[in-house]
């Protein structure tokens, strides 16, 4: 069986990181990766392993399902 081309996984890491007031470096240090890797994750150019996804979820205090999705997230307009 051949490997299927990788399905895109959408995420809200950047949005949630900014909400928490964390820099890329701070999030990277907290989950044990290089700050560049956080950048690649945010741009959807790298899909994390399950363990990294769980660490990110713990750090951002949000469930994995709310951070990652197989369908694009709806953009929430902040009218406040």
């Amino acid at each position, binding site marked *: 069986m051949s490997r299927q081309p990788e399905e895109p996984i959408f995420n809200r890491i950047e949005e949630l990181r900014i909400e928490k007031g964390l820099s890329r470096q701070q999030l990277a240090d907290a989950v*044990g*990766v290089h700050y560049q890797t956080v950048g*690649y994750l945010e741009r959807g150019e790298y899909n994390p392993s399950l363990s990294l996804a769980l660490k990110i979820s713990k750090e951002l205090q949000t469930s994995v399902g709310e951070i990652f999705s197989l369908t694009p997230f709806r953009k929430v307009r902040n009218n406040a």
Partner: protein
Amino acid sequence: MPRRNKIYWFEGVTEKGVKSLLNDENSKFRWLRSQRNRRVLVVLMSLGLILTASGSYWTSIKKELNLNSEVEIIVFSIAAIFVLFSVVGGYSFLRISVRGLADAPDELLDERQIQVRNTSFRYAYLVMGYIVLILMLLMIVGPRLELFGSDGPDGSFLLISVMFIFASLPSMILAWREKDI
């Protein structure tokens, strides 16, 4: 008590050295890390390696140029030193431009870095396979077809070039493929 600097003998690097490169501690090399500059470096390095390999044809070149023995030694020495220093310098810059990812041990890298490093090694292995295949074919077919003549190439520069290709190919592939963040 300060922690000892662990040496990774197999990779030929130290823990502090790898961490310093990974964490961009030396900011004066930041200009090297843009994708455009990395790609320029890969092209220059490739040219340097081709020039090093072409040193094998020095015996034919000096006949063409009709140089006397003293001038020949001076020209050869200057050219050889210049090309070798360029290749060694290029190799060092290349390593810095990709933060030494190609030579870093797994335990100092994160999962994405390990993945891109492994992919670059896979491509490097394929490219090296083709290079070795071409060299083997030349060795077998060359003398039969009299491709090299009686004063054929001296293999030492070709060997030096192939050694540098072995060492730098994973970094060259990484430098070419990694996107800017």
